[in-house]
């Protein structure tokens, strides 16, 4: 599936929820259940320091596709990471570089990607794209 198709699928899933509580509960559950990153990669080098919650990101490339793993010490942040990873992981670097994150707004979680929100997510997305740019250079 393309990034856009996955994003539309996530929007469909979230459209089933009636209110913020159900949306957040779903995100919290996603955050709890998904093993996101290998402990070996939870190093200081891979940490993105938000003011409040820590975010770790690791990337590698197989068959011209970039795979991401990530984690956070805050569970809501972790839930959003799970959604972002689902959309961006195992995609071609060019697709990742060109992808936008508007779908976060459409599923009612816009505030978490506000640059003023001190949760490390904005820096995380920047980091995902930086990895994609780096891997694309390797392909050229």
């Amino acid at each position: 599936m393309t990034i856009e198709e996955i994003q539309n699928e996530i929007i469909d899933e979230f459209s089933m929820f009636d209110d913020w509580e159900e949306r957040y509960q779903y995100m919290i559950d996603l955050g709890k259940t998904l093993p996101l990153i290998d402990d070996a990669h939870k190093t200081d080098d891979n940490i993105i320091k938000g003011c409040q919650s820590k975010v770790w990101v690791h990337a590698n490339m197989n068959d011209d596709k970039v795979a991401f793993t990530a984690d956070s010490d805050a569970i809501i942040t972790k839930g959003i990471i799970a959604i972002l990873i689902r959309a961006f992981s195992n995609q071609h670097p060019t697709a990742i570089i060109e992808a936008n994150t508007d779908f976060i707004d459409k599923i009612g979680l816009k505030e978490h990607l506000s640059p003023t929100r001190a949760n490390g997510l904005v820096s995380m997305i920047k980091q995902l794209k930086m990895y994609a740019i780096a891997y694309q250079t390797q392909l050229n």
Partner: protein
Amino acid sequence: MNTTHKHIAFNVDTIRKDFPILNREVNGKPLIYFDNAATSQTPQQVIDVIVDYYSNYNANIHRGVHALSQEATDAYEQARIKIQKHFNAKHAHEIIYTSGTTHGINLVANGFSSILKKEDEIIVSALEHHSNIVPWQMLCERTGASLKVIPMNTNGELILNEFDELLNENTKLVFVNHISNALGTINPIKYIIEKAHAVNAAVLVDGAQSCPHIRPDVQALDVDFYVCSAHKICGPTGVGMLYGKEEWLKKLPPYQGGGEMIAEVSFEKTTYADLPHKFEAGTPNVCGGIAFGAALDYMNAIGFDVIASYENKLLVYATEQMLQIDDLKIYGTAKEKTSVISFNVGNIHPYDIGTILDKMGIAVRTGHHCAQPIMDFYQIPGTIRASFMFYNTKEEIDTFITALKKAVMMLS
């Protein structure tokens, strides 16, 4: 100047009508504002003063010959006198307008850089806000002086006998906050000042968190410097004050060069203006200064005794209710504390609880509260901090407790 204020009978419903912002909704719920230790809300009486200033007499002050400039200068200097009376300073020129607490601290730190020598020592407390640590570290780097720290116990109280032992003839400065922003501890500043003076050290007290709750008497305390911000005391942001004893302010060099702070200028030599203008370079925050005075008028009309007693009731009630929640731990359990509750629930990240509370219209602060050394002491990433002012209510605390339980349920 009339300093006796007629206290109005305290009725929180009436008080709340003074604060337009308390009528708004957040995420479809009535706002419950428990982030008062970060900034307080502004009553209509102060908002009116700001509107009146810009509608009727906005002008640059001092030196102006025209009517508007005179009116603005008079109002600004009247406000300085209100601040002087409020803190019971001996002279109005001992009150220096600043942009806020941080500015005041930096002004004093900068002044001391020309006084301190290599063997000198500065003492700060373990309860300090970053703004009260970094300037002193920079000062020590510049002068070669060394920095000592008064440790705290697990209740969040300073260990005074360790402080006594840190004092010696090389101690030149002691810096301590009156009340800790992260834990709400009220520090025994009278004791600290007396002990510091016994070795001829000066004392700067950071009053950012105390001024909303108590009315310090700088002469009775015999404090050398006292700083605070207007925005924590129902005033606007971007303005504050530094109180300094006249003898100290005369001794310290100016902080910034510019207009207003000079007496005579030639290319050979500039002589500095008298106090307080020596420290007030450039066009000041005129409106802010006037509104600061209005905010003190507003608070004094209610009365700080009345405020402190009501806020203490909120603190006691909220503490009792919160401790009934499983795994809830309060950080900062000093015997003397103000209406600030810093806490965590189990292993839940403070950011997660803060996010869910916000969805329910409740504003709290989460994180390290610019006091990382305190968080390191407790070995936690941060806390959730609920802080109350006199316009908060018992009913709001009940709603907060219900919301907190719901957040914990969702996140557990």
